[in-house]
C-alpha cells in the first residue's frame, strides 16, 4: 500500500492492442517503479497514446496483463476499479478541460464525485492546488477558452492531481509550450513528484524533459519497448531508432557540458 516499496506501481506484461487488422502494440512489457518518473519516447503514431489509454482502460486490449498498484485490472471487481480510479490522475494531450466549466469547477469535478467534503474545504484545497501548479486566485473563475496553452496544461495538471493520486499519467505535457514554459512545467512536475511522492508515467517528445526530470526512459518502437534505462543507457543502445533519436542529442549534450565548465 505504501509507496516506495519493492513492488512496481505499474506492471504490464505481453500487452497486445490493435484496431481492425492493424496491431499497434505487440506483446509489450514494462514495469514502472514506485516513486519514479518514467519517460516514454517513440515515433509519432507509434502507439504511445494508445499504450497510455489502454492502461487506464479507455482502449480495450486484445491480450496481456496490466497490474496497477498491485491490482490486476482484469480480475478487479467494479467496486475495486472505482476505488482504483481515484488513485491515478491523467493529463490528456490537449488538456481535455470541460469547456463549459470554470477552472474552479474543473478541478473540483473529481472531488465532488468522490469525496463528501464541504464546499469551503473544496474551495480551499482547489486554490491550494492551483497555487501549487503556479496559478493564482484570479484564475479561478476563468473558462478554459480564456486560458493560454501553458495555463490550460497547468489547470489540467491540477485536475489530474485533484484527488492526490499515487500515479499520474501525462501525455506529452510540454508539447505546444515554448521552451521556457516547458522548462517551468518540467520543474513543476519534478517538484510535485517529490512533494507528493508521485509515480509519473510521462509520454514525451521533449529531449529536455527526458534529460532533466526523467529517472528512466523507455523507448517504444514497432509496438514494443526496445530499451529501458537512464539517459546514459540510451547512448549505449544499438537499436537503430534509439541511435538516431539520441544520436544528435549526444553532440549537443557535450556542447552544453563544455559551455557549462567554461562559465
Amino acid at each position, binding site marked *: 500500500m505504501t509507496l516506495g516499496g519493492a513492488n512496481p506501481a505499474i506492471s504490464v506484461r505481453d500487452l497486445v492492442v490493435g484496431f481492425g487488422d492493424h496491431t499497434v502494440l505487440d506483446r509489450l512489457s514494462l514495469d514502472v517503479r514506485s516513486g519514479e518518473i518514467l519517460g516514454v519516447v517513440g515515433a509519432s503514431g507509434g502507439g504511445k497514446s494508445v499504450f497510455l489509454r489502454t492502461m487506464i482502460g479507455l482502449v480495450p486490449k486484445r491480450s496481456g496483463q496490466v497490474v496497477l498498484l498491485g491490482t490486476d485490472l482484469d480480475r478487479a471487481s467494479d467496486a475495486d476499479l472505482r476505488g482504483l480510479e481515484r488513485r491515478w490522475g491523467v493529463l490528456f494531450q490537449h488538456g481535455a478541460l470541460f469547456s*463549459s466549466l470554470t477552472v474552479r469547477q474543473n478541478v473540483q469535478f473529481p472531488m465532488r464525485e468522490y469525496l463528501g467534503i464541504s464546499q469551503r*474545504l473544496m474551495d480551499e484545497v482547489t486554490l491550494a492546488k492551483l497555487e501549487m501548479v503556479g496559478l493564482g486566485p484570479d484564475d479561478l473563475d476563468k473558462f478554459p477558452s480564456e486560458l493560454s496553452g501553458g495555463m490550460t496544461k497547468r489547470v489540467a495538471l491540477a485536475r489530474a492531481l485533484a484527488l492526490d493520486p499515487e500515479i499520474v499519467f501525462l501525455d506529452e505535457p510540454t508539447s505546444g509550450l515554448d521552451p521556457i514554459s516547458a522548462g517551468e512545467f518540467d520543474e513543476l512536475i519534478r517538484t510535485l513528484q517529490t512533494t507528493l511522492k508521485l509515480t509519473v508515467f510521462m509520454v514525451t517528445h521533449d529531449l529536455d524533459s527526458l534529460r532533466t526530470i526523467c529517472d528512466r526512459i523507455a523507448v517504444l518502437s514497432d509496438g514494443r519497448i526496445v530499451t529501458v534505462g537512464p539517459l546514459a543507457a540510451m547512448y549505449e543502445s544499438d537499436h537503430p531508432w534509439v541511435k538516431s533519436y539520441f544520436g544528435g542529442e549526444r553532440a549537443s549534450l557535450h556542447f552544453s557540458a563544455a559551455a557549462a565548465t567554461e562559465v
Partner: protein
Amino acid sequence: MTAGTLEIRRDGERIDLVAAGSWTASHAHALEGLVETAEKAGPGPRQVDLAGLGEMDTFGAWLVQRLVRSGGGDGEASIVGVRESYRDLLSRVAATNRRTPRRRTSETGFGGWLRSIGRSVEGLGGELTTFVQMLGAVAVAIVRTLAHPRSFRLTSFVNQLDRVGLRAVPIILLVTVLIGGIIAQQGFFHFRKFGADDYVVDMVGILVLREIGVLIVAIMVAGRSGSSYTAELGSMKMREEIDALQTMGRDPVQVLILPRIAALVVALPILAFLGSMAALYGGLLVAWGYGGMDQLIYLARLREAVSLTHFDVGMIKAPFMALVIGIVACSEGMRVKGSAESLGLQTTVSVVKSIFLVIVLDGFFAIFFASIGM
C-alpha cells in the same frame, strides 16, 4: 489505514492540537469536522503536534494548515514533530490561500435586476447590429463574386443545395400533405354547418398558396438547415478553422457563408412550391375521402378560387425568408465562443430567432400586399 484523529489538549494557556492517523483525502470529511471544532476552541496560543501522524496528502496538509491558522489574531501556531518527508508538502501548502480569491460579483436585488434589464435592452441593439453587419458582409461578398465570378464556390454551393434542398424534400412533402389535409378536414367539419362545403376549397387554396405553404416550409428549413449551419460554423470557429481561413487570405464570408445562403435562397422557393402542391394534394385527398367531394370538382373549384396572384404572393416571400434564415444562422454561428455550451446556446438562439423573424417578415409582407392590392 487508521482514520485520522485530532485531540485538543489544554496545557495551561496553550492549546495543544495533537493529530494522529492518516490525514488523507478519504478521511477529509471526518477530519474537517474535527478541525472546525479546534478552530472554535477559543483564544490562546496553539501548538500543532504531528508526531503521531501516519499518512498525509494535500488535503491533510491543508487541514493542518487550517489548524496552524486557527488562532486567528493570535498569530500562527507552531508545528512540532513533523516527519522529514512531509516538511516539503507542508511548507508548499502553507504558502497557498494567502490571498483570498475575488469572487466575480454576482448581481442580486433590485439593482441587479435593473442592470440585467438594461443589459438585455442594450443586447437587443447588439443583435440588430450583428444582423445588419452580416447582411452587409454578404452584400459585399456578392458584389465581389459578381466582379470575379470564378471565385464563387460552385462545388460547395451544389453540395449545400443537395443537403438543404434535395434531402429535405421527403420530410417537407410528408408534413405539408398532412397540414393540407388537416386544414381541409377542419373546413369541412365547420363549414358543413352552413352548407358552405364548396368554400372549403377556396380556403385551402388561398391559405396554402398565400401563407401556410411557405411559412411551414420556412419554419422547417430554419429548424433543419439553419441549426446545422450554426452548428457547423460554430464548431469551425471553436477550432480556429475560420481564423486559419482568414490568414490564408480567404474571406470566410465568401468561402463558407455565401454558398450556404445562396443554396438556401435557391432551395427554399423550390421547397415552398413543392410543399404548397403537396398541401393542395392533401386537401384533395381529404375532400374526396372525408368530404365526399369528387376529385374533378375539387380541381375545378380550385381553378376558380385561386389566381396566379395568390401563388405569386407565396413565392415572392420565399427567397426573403431564406435570406433571413441564412443570415441569422450564419451570424449566430460566428458568435460561438470557445465552449461546447456556447455552441448549443447559439444553435438554439439561431432557430428561435429565425423562426420569429420569419413570422414577423410574413406579417410585414401581409401588410405590404394588402396595401398594393395583391
